[in-house]
């Protein structure tokens, strides 16, 4: 809401307050002023008269002027480029030293001719172009004949000395969409007397119109008939106020409607009385049909929209827009002025649906005072009398289906201070509430009842009163005091702490932690959906096609982040993200990892291409970190292949037989699809939730053997398909309790090894925890192992 301070000053004295002070006072009281604007600005201005106007000797468009600046300043020579500069014209002159929005005016020589000042257009004084005609924008401002040469109070003369506050009206204070109420607010904040003039009822005939409401969505509907008006421009002062408050001037009748709305917050509607099909106006909310509006567009009206009808024909879409058929035009003579109260929700839905949002509809949506219609009609009538030559005024016809409730709230000084943590006195609280126009009845103990002024729709309970008190007395009066802490202390839950550990583990392994959007496009939601076939949520009202589906997986987003980086020549990436995902079926915490290119072990000196086993190591690391024993999870080959993964280099992870992760090297086709260049990539999607909430054994120390261990190696050739885990398992079983560890230290396929075979070297660690092993024991157990390997896998020993 744009608030003209000049206008406000008519109702409350602003003497001694700068616009900035007022803005600050309002802002701290919860009425945020976003900007203080000046209609125009400029120092060292004076009204001058062009005495001579010669062509510049060295230019085809410049003029050399001799301008009379009045008694104090005499005649100055000014070089001027305006096409409308001419002898005899009265103009605005910015003297040397003048500061204008565009900079300072200095003495100068323009193409060899001295120039002492500038003749100004209103644009140069900072007036918004939207208020100026094209002619005004092109040249210097032409002042009327009667302008007094030498007058230095130019902005005041032009009525451009106004300052305008851009007030952000929050949803709880729709009353502030009214100059009167802003004046009341400023009066309360700065403790100044507020005087709102009361318009007297003018009435010299009884109207025959029948009015009423057939809908509970219109609880109040009032009409005044005004006859004999004359459409013409509104007075200059009114145009200036409207301009200052961002409303375009149209003609006196329209302007008066808008001006009354700005003052009171109550939108008005004017009907051409002679165009109504019948002398009646009724509000309905069941109407259905086409409606041709003022803007000459046809809108489909539906049940639920509030429509004002005459003879069952729609004359106005209540609170939104009038009908073309009964619009006031240049020839209108007689009016019906309507001041009504409409249900906010209905207006909100109608104006949103039809895309018709206006100053009026916004006021209805935010809430209007339902009990001021007569004053509003009287104000409009008196203005129409003065500025539209209206002669006949009917009585006010009021339909009111709502009883005026007196809003009373009981509270106490103790309650107010208790909520605020303050120790304000009875007197302070009484004073503040009274300034805000609450009627306070307080007893000696500080118990009180207040009567809330009708325009304050937002104050309904004692908590609201505490806000009124503190916003005027100031939050600096609230002492800081930490709340008492009872013995129960907070902290992360087990699951939260584990999630954090997993993240830190990955960071410490050198992976970068990412953050991506939860909304995907329809193609992305289907890609890399590895863990389940859940249905995803879809946005009804998306902004772009890219953000439509709520993700059920994280990996695709992370691959997009990888693509972003690869396209910027960052080709070695280790990225991860943990995120909540939600589908129609479940809500889980997921982890995604993407490894692209090479692990840079020593800058670029040593590099290891990322592969399946990197990711496997990270997965094992996470389980180890959480204290989950290897026996509780396993890696398995994928039975069904995904398009996204290399079929031979991918796996699933089962945690207690529940699928928790799928990972593997990216299918070569996907590498180019995701713009990852020629490099390789390994990806993982993991559901962390079961891991975060599982119970694990408390770790306990087991004795460390006093006896030495002995290592022996085995090397053999075996069928390529035989998996390492089976070989190791066989070794452990065959080794009874003596094999403490066995690990593969070499795998070779290629030259000297038959096709379909591989050479494997395994190191086995033997130890007896109760005695030193003898050579014979070692040989015996190793022979047994060899026998079992030979029997089960037909291995061919190499030594």
């Amino acid at each position: 809401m744009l608030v003209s301070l000049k206008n406000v000053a008519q109702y409350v004295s602003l003497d001694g307050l700068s616009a900035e002070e007022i803005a600050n006072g309002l802002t701290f009281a919860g009425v945020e002023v976003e900007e203080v604007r000046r209609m125009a600005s400029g120092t060292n201005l004076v009204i001058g008269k062009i005495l001579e106007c010669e062509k510049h000797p060295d230019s085809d468009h410049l003029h050399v002027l001799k301008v009379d600046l009045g008694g104090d300043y005499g005649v100055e020579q000014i070089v001027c480029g305006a096409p409308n500069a001419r002898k005899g014209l009265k103009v605005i002159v910015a003297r040397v030293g003048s500061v204008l929005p565009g900079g300072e005016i200095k003495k100068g020589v323009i193409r060899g001719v001295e120039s002492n000042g500038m003749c100004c257009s209103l644009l140069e004084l900072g007036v918004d172009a939207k208020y100026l005609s094209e002619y005004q924008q092109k040249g210097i401002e032409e002042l009327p004949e009667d302008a007094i040469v030498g007058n230095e109070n130019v902005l005041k003369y032009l009525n451009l000395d106004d300052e305008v506050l851009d007030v952000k009206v929050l949803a709880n204070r729709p009353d502030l969409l009214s100059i009167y109420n802003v004046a009341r607010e400023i009066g309360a904040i700065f403790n100044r007397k507020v005087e709102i003039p009361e318009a007297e009822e003018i009435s010299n005939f009884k109207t025959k119109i029948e009015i009423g409401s057939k809908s509970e969505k219109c609880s109040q509907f009032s009409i005044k008939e005004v006859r004999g008006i004359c459409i013409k421009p509104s007075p200059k002062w009114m145009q200036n106020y409207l301009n200052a408050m961002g409303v375009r001037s149209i003609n006196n009748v329209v302007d008066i409607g808008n001006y009354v709305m700005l003052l009171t917050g109550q939108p008005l509607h004017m009907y051409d009385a002679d165009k109504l099909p019948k002398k009646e106006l009724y509000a309905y909310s069941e109407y259905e049909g086409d409606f041709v509006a003022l803007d000459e567009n046809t809108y489909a009206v539906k049940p639920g929209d509030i429509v004002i009808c005459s003879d069952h024909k729609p004359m106005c879409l209540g609170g939104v827009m009038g009908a073309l058929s009964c619009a006031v035009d240049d020839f209108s003579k007689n009016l019906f002025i309507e001041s009504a109260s409409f249900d906010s929700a209905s207006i909100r839905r109608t104006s949103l649906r039809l895309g018709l949002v206006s100053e009026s509809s916004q006021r209805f949506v935010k809430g209007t005072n339902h009990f001021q219609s007569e004053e509003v009609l009287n104000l409009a009538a008196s203005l129409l009398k003065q500025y539209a030559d209206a002669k006949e005024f009917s009585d006010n016809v009021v339909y009111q289906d709502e009883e005026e409730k007196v809003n009373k709230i009981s509270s106490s000084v103790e309650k107010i201070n208790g909520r605020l943590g303050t120790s304000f006195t009875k007197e302070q609280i009484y004073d503040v509430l009274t300034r805000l126009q609450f009627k306070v009845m307080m007893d000696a103990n500080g118990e009180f009842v207040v009567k809330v002024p009708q325009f304050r729709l937002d104050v309904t309970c004692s908590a609201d009163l505490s806000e009124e008190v503190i916003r005027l007395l100031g939050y600096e009066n609230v002492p800081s005091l930490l709340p008492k802490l009872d013995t129960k202390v907070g902290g992360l839950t087990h699951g939260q702490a584990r999630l954090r550990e997993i993240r830190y583990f990955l960071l410490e392994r050198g992976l970068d932690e990412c953050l991506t959007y939860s909304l995907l496009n329809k193609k992305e939601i289907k890609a890399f959906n590895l863990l389940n076939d859940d249905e995803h949520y879809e946005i009804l009202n998306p902004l772009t096609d890219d953000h439509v589906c709520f993700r059920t997986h994280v990996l695709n987003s992370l691959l997009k982040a990888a693509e972003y980086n690869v396209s910027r020549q960052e080709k070695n990436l280790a990225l991860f993200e943990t995120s909540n995902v939600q589908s129609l079926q479940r809500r889980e915490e997921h982890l995604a990892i993407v490894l692209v290119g090479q692990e840079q072990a020593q800058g670029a000196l040593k590099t290891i291409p990322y592969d399946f086993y990197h990711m496997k190591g990270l997965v094992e690391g996470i389980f180890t970190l959480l204290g989950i024993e290897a026996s509780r999870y396993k890696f398995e080959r994928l039975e069904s292949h995904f398009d996204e993964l290399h079929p031979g280099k991918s796996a699933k992870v089962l945690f207690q037989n529940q699928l928790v992760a799928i990972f593997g090297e990216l299918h070569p086709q996907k590498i180019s699809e995701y713009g990852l260049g020629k490099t390789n990539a390994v990806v993982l999607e993991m559901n962390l939730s079961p891991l975060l909430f599982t119970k694990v054994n408390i770790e306990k120390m087991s004795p460390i053997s006093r006896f030495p261990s002995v290592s022996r190696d085995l090397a053999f050739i075996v069928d390529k398909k035989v998996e390492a885990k089976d070989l190791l398992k066989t070794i452990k079983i065959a080794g009874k309790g003596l094999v403490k560890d066995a690990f593969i230290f070499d795998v070779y396929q290629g030259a000297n090894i038959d096709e379909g075979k591989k050479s494997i070297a395994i190191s086995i660690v033997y130890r007896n925890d109760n005695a030193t092993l003898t050579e014979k024991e070692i040989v015996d157990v190793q022979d047994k192992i060899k026998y079992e390997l030979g029997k089960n896998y037909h291995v061919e020993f190499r030594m």
Partner: protein
Amino acid sequence: MKNNKLKDILQNALGTIEKALSLDALINIKNTYLSKKSELMGMMSKIGELPPEERKEFGQEVNEVKTTIAASLDEKMAELSEKEMAEKLKKEEIDISLPSRSLTVGGRNPFHIIKDEMIDVFLGMGFEVADGPEVESDEFNFELLNIPKDHPARDMQDTFYIDKNTLLRTHTSPVQAHVMAEKKGEAIRVICPGKTYRRDDDDATHSHQFAQIEGLVVDKDINIGHLKATLELFAQRMFGEKRKIRLRSSYFPFTEPSVEVDIDCANCGGKGCSMCKGTGYIEILGGGMVHPNVLKMNGYDPEVYSGFAFGIGIERVAILRYGIDDIRRFYQNDVRFLHQFRKKI
């Protein structure tokens, strides 16, 4: 020494040892002078040919020569091996400025750094951490927070809807309602960090996805002073011990009174600069006393309990802390950006 030959052997030996340049040369010298086939040992074996009275003296002299040579050899050996080791080590010198084995930590999106840090500040004040669904019901996102259907405050937050009654939460405040439902009757001190969504076009200062940390304290006798102190402590932990906060009256449907909280600008110390747009203060969060209707709707008697709540934008704090120029940076994951932030503490 009487025996001239021995004298010569000793002289020769010592001279050769002195001139020896390598350990190998010393071993040769040792063989030449001290092995069984050496001249010295040859002379020793002929001791029997000497008259008995000379034998003792001769024997002593041979031994003396032998010990002297051996000692000299040992000394030279030590000298040379030390030199050889030094040379070997010298040859093994490396360029220590070459890159390391890269055991550094990964880059952290500053979003996560700030989120973790903010959580830690509140954990230190005895808060618990709660979380709630991002796909939320209208009831929890709006109605239980004193924002009934068609309340004008709904226009303050443009919402992504899934269907009439389901939406992407527009703030973390619905977790307040979840926590109150769960804790029914108990005192509450909880924060809820999480992602939120609004129907905003993405640009340098707007994002359709952003994150907040919601705070909720419900107990007997809670007042605005408690909110002020809690947020003051928060501001000081996050932005420096000298920071001061300022409360401005504001409006949220679920708090009454409601406040916006500013901190004095760390950049200029409150004098006014480009960072704070000349005001000396920077808006960081909103909060207030939990509205009695919210308490009532969520099963707490507002006559007995009171509470405060606040919501802090995580990106907003990170932007201020790190001077980040564009909110989209958090979501681009440019590693050149991520690698600028590695510090854990």
